[in-house]
């Protein structure tokens, strides 16, 4: 694997620190701690909403999940573009890991949104432009991951996945605006209001919690992807030919 010599300096120090197994274990423990605290704040400390009541608390999970989906999607898009300019297995592995996370976080986040919608809007689904765009994006991501699974050649897979990733990312705003126009025939938009500072506090902690969790998942998934890539492209040790070779 190509790797520039980076064995000294501040970057190397950060790498050594982050790569230390004890540090990584501490990070995971810290993530769980923040997650538990944020859940506690969201479920017990934050006040119920003036109109939604306690149903508001679903937002503390729904909003961060969808935000992480968008972050993951952006990472996949950037890696897709990057790969076409400079091919690298690391970029490809990161694109794959991030796409899977986007699907997982997005699917759960959308489900949470639908559950929230039932008592507030009265329906699980309302062809809301954002909701619909995310639903379409999830299907598109499933297609992206299916493509990766069905192409055997690693280099072609990486190029085609990058192309697909770019097309999906470019289409997302297009989808959003067309659904908005399509739905604008029957307008039902959520109203923006000023938010209680206690709610902001709960939301902030939850966003941090889900972000840390996202990082942990991303690193693990990235490693799995990179290891798989290395296994695919490494030429196996050639066995010694044995007695017949000596005669020739």
């Amino acid at each position, binding site marked *: 694997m190509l790797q520039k010599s980076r064995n000294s300096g501040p970057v190397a120090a950060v790498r050594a620190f982050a790569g230390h197994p004890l540090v990584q274990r501490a990070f995971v423990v810290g993530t769980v701690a923040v997650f538990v605290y944020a859940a506690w704040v969201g479920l017990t400390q934050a006040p119920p909403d003036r109109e939604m009541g306690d149903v508001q608390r679903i937002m503390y999970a729904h909003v961060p999940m969808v935000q992480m989906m968008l972050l993951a999607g952006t990472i996949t898009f950037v890696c897709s573009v990057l790969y076409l300019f400079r091919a690298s297995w690391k970029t490809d592995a990161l694109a794959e890991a991030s796409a899977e996370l986007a699907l997982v976080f997005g699917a759960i986040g959308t489900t949470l949104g639908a559950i929230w919608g039932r008592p507030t809007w009265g329906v699980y689904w309302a062809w809301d432009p954002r909701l619909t765009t995310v639903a379409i994006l999830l299907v598109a991501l499933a*297609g992206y991951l299916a493509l990766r699974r069905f*192409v055997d050649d690693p280099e072609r897979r990486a190029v085609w996945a*990058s*192309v697909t990733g*770019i*097309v999906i990312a*470019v289409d997302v705003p297009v989808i959003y605006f067309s*659904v908005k126009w*399509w739905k604008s025939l029957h307008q039902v938009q959520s109203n923006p209001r000023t938010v209680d500072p206690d709610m902001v506090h709960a939301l902030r902690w939850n966003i941090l919690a889900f972000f840390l969790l996202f990082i942990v998942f991303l690193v693990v998934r990235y490693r799995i992807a990179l290891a798989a890539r290395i296994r695919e492209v490494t030429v196996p040790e050639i066995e010694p030919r044995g007695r017949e070779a000596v005669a020739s």
Partner: protein
Amino acid sequence: MRRPGLLASTWVLFRKDLLLEWRSRARVNALVFFSLATLLLFSFALGPDTALLRRGAGGYLWLALLLSSVLALGESFRLERENSTLEGLRLVPVDARSIYLSKGLANALLLAALGVLLVPVLVALLDVRIVLSWGQLVATIVLGCLAIAAPGTLYGAIASHARARDVLLPLLLFPILIPALVAAAKGTALVFEGDPMGQFSSWIALLGSFDVLYWGLGFVLFPRVVEE
């Protein structure tokens, strides 16, 4: 040997693709009957209330075209893959972008012809009336089929070299095409039912911008898809 220009090679390849389709008319016929069968299926699944069917006619047309496009696109690349003609073309050398343009335009033409063919069927089966003009209807069909062919040709090339290609192509294509589907179906519905609020031109403009975007993207990305 001087490399042929983009437009020249596009034209040559375009004629080749059309000739191939003409030579294998049976395949094209099968495609026509498939789309007819699809319309019948919709009528049976959602009928027999004629008023309801008539209101949905615009949508059914585009669903039938979308499903047929998957077959058409798959076929379009199957021949290429079986005879390794894409690799052969690259050796000539032909600019990959002219392959994209020619294949895409041939596919769009085939689909548009199919679309126009289905209109009288809609009139007969679903009691549809053309309230706006034929010109607007044809324009919608052409622009919509161009929108299908652009990412369709790109993904068709990818899927033809992957496993489970019959499932992969629609899975990749359909989410991307939803905006175009919405615009084309809406435009067609307005043609069939009248346009009191003058929305038709906005939908057509939308569809046109999708075409520009998808063809631009495909034009830039296709060479990466077929390069070795």
